[in-house]
């Protein structure tokens, strides 16, 4: 604060409280409606104060949308994507920043161009690849004539097939295949002073030792930021899981179930159950963001700028 200005301070607080209302109203409505009975939630106008039926509503939402197994699936996918991304991003950024090899720049651009096109715009062909993830290799073998050659020699036809539909691998891998994390790690590795590397070389440490004993401990904050961003974004995925799981009972995630919770056109308008379910579904990423705020804000800003 630079000068005293009681009037402007008042305006500031008023504006911030207004903003608080804008941001919190949807959360408040979810909590209020989720805790009311069917009669209360159907009242017009609605009473904007929580009632006592939250636990019953959660139980019926739990049953209706089969939330137990779906929550487990969501956790598996979110943790799988987060762990996979951190692992891949750190080692590939390590290779790009600290190693001298010919194709370095080509690799760099091959990976970073993927930042441009989100999964949604190439959803149709990505779905086709999920039906057989080894198809590109098959095509390469076919065009190079290797398939024909092997068939002529050994009379075995090479048929590569790996179906990712209805599997955790299919839910996780395509989400890991983007460059967000690699970029974040690269930005951080670029700030490591040269002296540090020279010193560790002097002490006789090779690249692997340097990575584990120097880089990883230094990049802890970075890792927390990436973990938060990835957990939230993979938990909240909707379109991809919807396409790749035809077997909803076993591989459905919790966000896909939201639609099943909405009251049907001519059914009972039990929005209280819907809201209780939505509350459960939005809680895990919200908790992660609220708890990790300090780190993730830093990570978000270095990632995108």
């Amino acid at each position, binding site marked *: 604060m630079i000068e005293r200005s009681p009037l*402007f301070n008042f305006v500031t607080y008023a*504006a911030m409280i207004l903003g608080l209302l804008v941001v919190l109203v949807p959360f408040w409505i979810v909590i209020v*409606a989720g805790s009311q009975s069917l009669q209360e939630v159907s009242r017009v106008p*609605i009473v904007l104060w929580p009632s006592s039926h939250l636990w019953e509503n959660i139980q019926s939402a739990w049953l209706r949308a089969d939330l137990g197994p779906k929550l487990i699936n969501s956790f598996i996918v979110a943790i799988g994507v987060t762990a996979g991304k951190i692992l*891949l991003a750190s080692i590939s950024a390590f290779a790009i920043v600290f*190693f001298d090899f010919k194709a370095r720049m080509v690799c760099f651009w091959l990976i970073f161009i993927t930042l441009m096109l989100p999964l949604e715009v190439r959803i149709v062909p990505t779905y086709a690849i999920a039906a057989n993830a080894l198809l590109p290799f098959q095509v390469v073998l076919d065009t190079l004539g290797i398939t024909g050659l092997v068939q002529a020699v050994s009379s075995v036809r090479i048929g590569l097939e790996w179906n990712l539909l209805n599997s955790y691998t299919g839910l996780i891998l395509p989400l890991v295949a983007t460059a967000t994390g690699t970029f974040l790690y690269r930005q951080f590795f670029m700030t490591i002073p040269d002296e540090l590397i020279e010193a560790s070389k002097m002490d006789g440490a*090779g690249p692997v030792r340097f990575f584990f004993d120097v880089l990883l401990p230094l990049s802890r904050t970075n890792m927390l930021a990436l973990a938060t961003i990835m957990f939230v974004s993979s938990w909240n995925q909707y379109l991809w899981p919807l396409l790749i799981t035809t077997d909803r009972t076993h591989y459905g995630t919790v*966000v896909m179930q939201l639609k099943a919770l909405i009251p049907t056109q001519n059914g009972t308008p039990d929005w209280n159950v819907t809201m209780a379910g939505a509350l459960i*579904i939005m809680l895990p990423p919200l908790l992660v963001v609220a708890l990790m705020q300090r780190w993730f804000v830093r990570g978000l800003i270095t990632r995108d700028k």
Partner: protein
Amino acid sequence: MERRAFYRNPVLPWLLIGPQLILVLVFFYWPTSQALYWAFTLEQPWGGGNTWVWLDNFIAIFRDREYWATVARSAFYAICTTGLSMAVALFLACFVDRSLKGTKLFQSVYVWPYAIAAPAAGVAFRFIFAPQSGLIGSINTLWPGIWDPSTNGIHALAMVIICHAWLGIGYNFIFFLAALQMIPRSITEAGAMDGARPLRRMFDLQLPLITPTVFFLLIMNLISSFTDSFGLIDTMTEGGPVGSTEVMVYKIYFDGFKGLDYSGAAAQSIVLMFLVIALTFVQFKWVEKRVHYN
């Protein structure tokens, strides 16, 4: 990439970067090239592979009046969402930047929308805006039939736009606040010495200094409103009533997976890709020119 590389090893870097490269090739480059192939070919109705049809698929969608309506609708959607979301976030960031007592509390709550899944927010807003329920719907008891997103296309579109804008507040707020806090304190103090009141400083000092961030967010928001709207629309309106909330991504999904018209959907995907690439390109060009104010 000016950094000097330090290690030389014929195998190790490939082992490190290999997994990522394979994933990117399989799940990015292959599908993208496949989309290009489909966009220029047509699948035979009785099987037997694809025939090359040059630009026929594109001509077909460009001749389709409905497709242009979808494009126009998507553009309108993107502009409204971006404008609304950024305006709210900037407004809040400007006041939070004054760092009065207790600001930290407000600041941490403003970030929350970032954590919410679009379909979850969609369900919540659908209830808030439902014509029969007791929130916005209450005005129907005063003036019957004045608000009904399930039959009125304009109402439905407005509802989805508001929800999408709300979801973006957290992300935009983080960036605006960071940009505002990076302005050197001495500049603000100099402004105050010259007699500029806080409001004047906001318009004449802070806003011009954060234009690079404004522009960056503008592009990011436009891209995300073109591409990210599926979860919202699918839970809130399913493109209806009578197609009045059908945007490009939803049409691609619908034509491709419900209509099984892969060639048409691929051609539409390519158009959307070009749009996103063009926006990214504009950003690179512009940012290159402008970011050197300190």
